[in-house]
């Protein structure tokens, strides 16, 4: 793809140079060297080399905050996605967090010969069925749980999601050799690996004859919904688990045990701005008796990103964004910060433990996924 094609596809030529993107951008707020407007301007001036070899290209969080503010509807995240593919094919990569272990793992996983044993955590307590036409897409939870030593507890999200689905009377199917959805590969420009993963997953799902897929990770959800149709064919209904819960509350009058807790909710970029799902998680939180739900200052479309996406260019600025968000959560008076994305939780936990020598502000707050809270509120209730 040439620069011209990218400009056409992302409608960059509509740019009015108003600079709204740079003023809303959470990265620009802390990193004065980064500006979406300058990036777009360089593209329009045809300065391809300058763009491709700019390390800041990988700093964008692809959080969609700029895109929602843009008066000319320039799709800046798409522009970044395509530019990164160009950069990646000329050998440029971002600064990969965790020394690139996650990206390397995904590339290894994309190998067709790989036979994973990713369902070791599954015990007899969960009901799954190989005949079911509802699929629960586990995602990378087993890997994250093994890799991070700071209580990321991503596997608990998978387990609690299964518990919830069982409670709703769904015995989902799990795929023993599903692979990473490829989100991080797509957003770091490794299109070839992404395609391989997408084709593998789509083939597995077609073979299984699945009609509906439920996700606990918004990144997988977004990738399946927005990006897979461009590369593979798959005919399934897609749903985030918070949507399934909200529907169950509305239609079947799903009720919960009281949980005494003051919580606030963090809109993840993928579930919120990318897919426009703001209400279902809030509906779920309000439905649990005893839960006092307070909002932070920046919510819904205005929500602040957790500071890193696709595990690239996680730097001091990312940390500052994270600290800002955590302070905001603490400032709301809540005891627990509820997230709906496993990666947001990983990044927040990371900001708390990796304080280093300098003593920053106290950002310690319990971070919990929405499914953890719901599973707690459903404990001991008879199944629906």
């Amino acid at each position: 793809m040439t620069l011209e094609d990218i400009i056409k596809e992302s409608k960059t030529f509509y740019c009015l140079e108003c600079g709204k993107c740079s003023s809303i951008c959470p990265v620009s707020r802390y990193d004065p060297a980064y500006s979406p407007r300058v990036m777009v301007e360089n593209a329009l001036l045809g300065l391809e080399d300058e763009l491709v070899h700019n390390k800041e290209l990988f700093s964008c969080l692809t959080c969609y905050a700029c895109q929602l503010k843009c008066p000319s509807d320039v799709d800046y995240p798409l522009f970044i996605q395509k530019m990164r593919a160009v950069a990646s094919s000329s050998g440029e990569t971002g600064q990969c967090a965790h020394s690139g272990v996650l990206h390397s793992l995904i590339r290894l996983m994309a190998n067709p010969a790989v036979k994973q044993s990713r369902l070791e955590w599954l015990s007899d307590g969960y009901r799954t069925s190989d005949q079911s036409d509802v699929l629960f897409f586990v995602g990378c939870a087993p890997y994250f749980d093994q890799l991070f030593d700071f209580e990321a507890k991503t596997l608990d999200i998978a387990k609690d999601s299964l518990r919830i689905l069982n409670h709703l009377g769904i015995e989902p199917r799990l795929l023993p050799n599903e692979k990473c959805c490829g989100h991080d590969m797509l957003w770091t420009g490794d299109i070839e690996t992404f395609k391989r993963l997408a084709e593998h997953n789509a083939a597995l799902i077609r073979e299984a004859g699945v009609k509906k897929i439920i996700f606990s990770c918004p990144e997988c959800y977004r990738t399946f919904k927005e990006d897979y149709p461009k590369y593979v064919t798959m005919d399934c209904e897609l749903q985030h688990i918070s949507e399934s819960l909200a529907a169950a509350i509305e239609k079947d009058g799903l009720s919960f045990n009281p949980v005494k807790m003051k919580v606030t909710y963090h809109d993840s970029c993928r579930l919120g701005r990318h897919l426009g799902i703001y209400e279902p998680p809030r509906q779920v939180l309000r439905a649990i008796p005893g839960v006092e739900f307070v909002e932070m200052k920046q919510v819904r479309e205005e929500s602040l990103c957790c500071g890193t996406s696709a595990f690239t260019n996680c730097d001091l600025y990312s940390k500052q964004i994270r600290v800002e968000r955590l302070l905001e959560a603490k400032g709301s008076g809540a005891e627990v910060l509820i997230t709906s994305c496993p990666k947001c939780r990983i990044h927040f936990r990371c900001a708390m433990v990796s304080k280093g020598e300098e003593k920053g502000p106290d950002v310690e707050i319990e971070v919990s996924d929405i499914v953890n809270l719901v599973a707690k509120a459903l404990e001991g209730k008879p199944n629906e």
Partner: protein
Amino acid sequence: MNEFEPLVLAFCCNWCTYVSADVIGTSRIQYPHNVRIVRVMCSGMVDPIYILRAFEAGIDGVLVCGCHYVDCHYINGPLKCDAMFNRLKGLVNILGLEDERLRRKMVAASEGLGFVAIVEETVDQLKKLGPSPFKKARKEAIA
């Protein structure tokens, strides 16, 4: 010619295992030629990414060798190595990699014959296992 010759990458600590491998060389003791040694200053500095990259590049097995706990030149390197290794082992196990392909051993400077035994054992096991699953597809990709 037809027998599969695995390629093993060995990360050896400068103070113990590398010295022992050196002694083996100067003593003219024979051991399998399948091993490629990378000298590192301490087994505690081996990052998971070195190992994953090696597998990506098509290495059949990786050995991480360093000092015994009490011998470390940097006080607690082997403990750091243990922590790294256990986490990585868990990850590659989920990926479906066989246990024999990734091993961690402690070899002191005086245990040259021990190093030979470890290399021989690893190469034997890898010959039985065949090429790494990551390698096969890499070859296909090149072809």
